[in-house]
């Protein structure tokens, strides 16, 4: 029996003291976590992108790298400093550690009575997520609603989620496809972390302002070399995030967006975006909240052993909605519309929150550069014109 307690993060006066950690002492934080039995996962440079993988030392982090992002474009560039978190988000999200892309649901073996089914789920690994951005904290909170707050609980997700130690990092810059301020998900990490860091770089100093968000966060910080942050350091940390907030690459007007999309099911813009969409499913794979899966069944050559696997799936395939006789969403238009309407509208009805956190991954990683903020704006703009026209007609 697993008891799920997730939101044991607490911000109290006592814990809410801000600490200063020198850049080089962040190594000590990683070691303290490793000594507590965690495997630390953090950003690292691989194949020309910043991805999430195991990190053991500061050198594993993308020191001195930044990313330049635009619709359909992602480039790493050198920074002129030694920033460890001087970038935004890459193609990976933490969902691959909480909601595995491939998961064996069970094995079945033939026996004299027919067959038997067993589940060999391994215990969840103890992972640290180092460098979780505010938008990603919100993405995790959204997946919590999907997987553990409903009538049925995904126990694999639940166990991994419960164990994960979250080290958030506030953003000091905004990417070209970022719009977290529109979605009210950033750039400051407000809750849902064990420790939150803000990286401060000045000509003569380079340090982190740290704050604990949970008891275990406090414990780890106690094992790390720190000193109390003074007022100017705390102020600096706040200003850095405010700067990032002022530099959003994109904007999405969410006013009445649910009703807007529901009533524009037949908007001509869907045809327009369908002419550009390749239905490659990149957006759904890169999205930190997309949760759809399919199942696959296999048997070995003897036919005595079968397995059932769960894999990430995408609503951009025709198979996704197939029932005997055919697919429910044959046109590209209907599949893009399903994805975007689900993300920005239906999600609100289903889970009480938007499914979008404004991280911009779907824009950056779309090979056709389709921009969800632009598509939403196009529908809103045309609709506004129609309403204005009706108004004019009414006045005439």
């Amino acid at each position, binding site marked *: 029996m697993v008891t799920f307690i997730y939101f044991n993060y607490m911000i109290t006066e006592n814990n809410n003291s801000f600490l200063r950690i020198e850049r080089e002492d962040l190594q000590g934080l990683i070691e303290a976590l490793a000594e507590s039995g965690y495997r630390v996962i953090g950003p690292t440079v691989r194949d020309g992108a910043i991805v999430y993988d195991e990190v053991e030392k500061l050198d594993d982090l993308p020191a001195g790298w930044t990313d330049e992002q635009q619709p359909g474009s992602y480039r790493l560039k050198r920074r002129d400093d030694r920033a460890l978190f001087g970038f935004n988000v890459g193609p990976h999200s933490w969902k691959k550690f909480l909601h595995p892309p491939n998961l064996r649901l069970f094995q079945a073996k033939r026996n004299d009575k027919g067959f038997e*089914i067993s589940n060999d789920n391994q215990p969840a690994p103890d992972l640290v997520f180092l460098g979780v951005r505010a938008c990603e904290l919100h993405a995790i909170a959204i997946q919590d609603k999907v997987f553990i707050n409903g009538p*049925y609980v995904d126990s694999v997700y639940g166990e991994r989620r419960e164990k994960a130690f979250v080290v958030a990092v506030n953003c000091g810059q905004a990417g070209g496809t970022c719009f977290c301020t529109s979605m009210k998900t950033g750039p400051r990490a407000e809750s849902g972390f064990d420790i939150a860091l803000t990286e401060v770089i000045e000509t003569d100093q380079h340090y982190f302002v740290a704050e604990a968000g949970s008891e275990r966060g406090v414990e780890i910080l106690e094992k790390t070399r720190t000193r109390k942050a003074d007022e100017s350091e705390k102020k600096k940390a706040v200003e850095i995030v405010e700067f990032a907030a002022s530099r959003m690459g994109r904007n999405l007007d969410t006013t009445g967006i649910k009703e807007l999309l529901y009533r524009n099911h037949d908007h001509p813009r869907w045809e327009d975006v369908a002419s550009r969409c390749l239905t490659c499913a990149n957006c759904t794979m890169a999205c930190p909240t997309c949760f*759809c899966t399919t199942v696959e069944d296999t048997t070995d050559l003897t036919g005595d052993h079968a397995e*059932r696997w769960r894999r990430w799936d995408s609503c951009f395939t025709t198979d996704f*909605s197939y*029932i005997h006789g055919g697919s429910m969403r044959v046109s590209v238009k209907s599949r893009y519309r399903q994805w975007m309407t689900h993300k920005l*509208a239906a999600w609100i009805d289903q889970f009480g929150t938007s499914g979008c956190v404004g991280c911009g991954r779907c824009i950056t990683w779309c090979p056709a550069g389709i921009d969800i903020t632009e598509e939403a704006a196009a529908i809103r703009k045309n609709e506004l014109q129609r309403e204005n026209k009706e108004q004019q007609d009414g006045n005439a």
Partner: protein
Amino acid sequence: MNDPMMPSIWRIKNYRTETADTFTIDLVNEHGQDGMTGMHFQPGQFNMLYLFGAGESAISISGDPRNKDVLTHTVRAVGTVTRALARLKRGDVIGVRGPYGSPWPVVEAIGNDVLIVAGGIGLAPLRPVIYHLIAEREKYGKVTLLYGARSPVDILFRQELEKWRGRFDMQVEATVDNARQGQTWHGNAGVVTGLIPRAGFDPSQTTVMICGPELMMRFTIIELQKRGIEEDAIHVSMERNMKCAIGLCGHCQLGPEFICKNGPVFRFDRIRDSFRKREI
């Protein structure tokens, strides 16, 4: 906590061929709780049936909810899994998880006339309702079953339909799209919507339950509305691709609804907007 994706093992106690492509299996759970070999379920709910190595299929329960000895499913062999299920025989085992989904409004219908409109295999998920209504007949007003099938040989549960038709306390009308010479058929021909004028019900006091192809449901609703039935008195059972049956895989979405956990039975006014949108 039990993993909701893990099936339990059930054995086929009986296998009956219903029509050329439809069959019924009675299952028993030899390891059921409290010695119960059947399953507690509500009319309209479904199970995920797992066939070794082939996969799962969502199949509605077609048996009597009062029968605690067997779990009955009627399956139409149209896909990979269901075709493979059709080849099973008495004594074979399959995996079952469930029951899932929303029930038909048999409780809300108490005191009302009940009109059931079924098409093709759509009679299967409604059969538990009919068993329930017969068992508690005094609680309901007029009960009418209108059933449409492709041809006389495609009629599901024919003997039972004839038995129900013989009762004095329910009206049963069946119709086929067409009938060939030599197919014993003394019933009606024509579409199921054509039977609606013959059904006796009080539009202000009627609960309607419809299950069949979406097109048939659409036309049935139009006919009912012409006769003064309100949208909130109509209930439909929807079908979409389902993988998990517990609202986690995303496949069965219909607008904001997950068919598996919010449905499959919906009050029509609650899904009206999605029902009329294309490719939603």
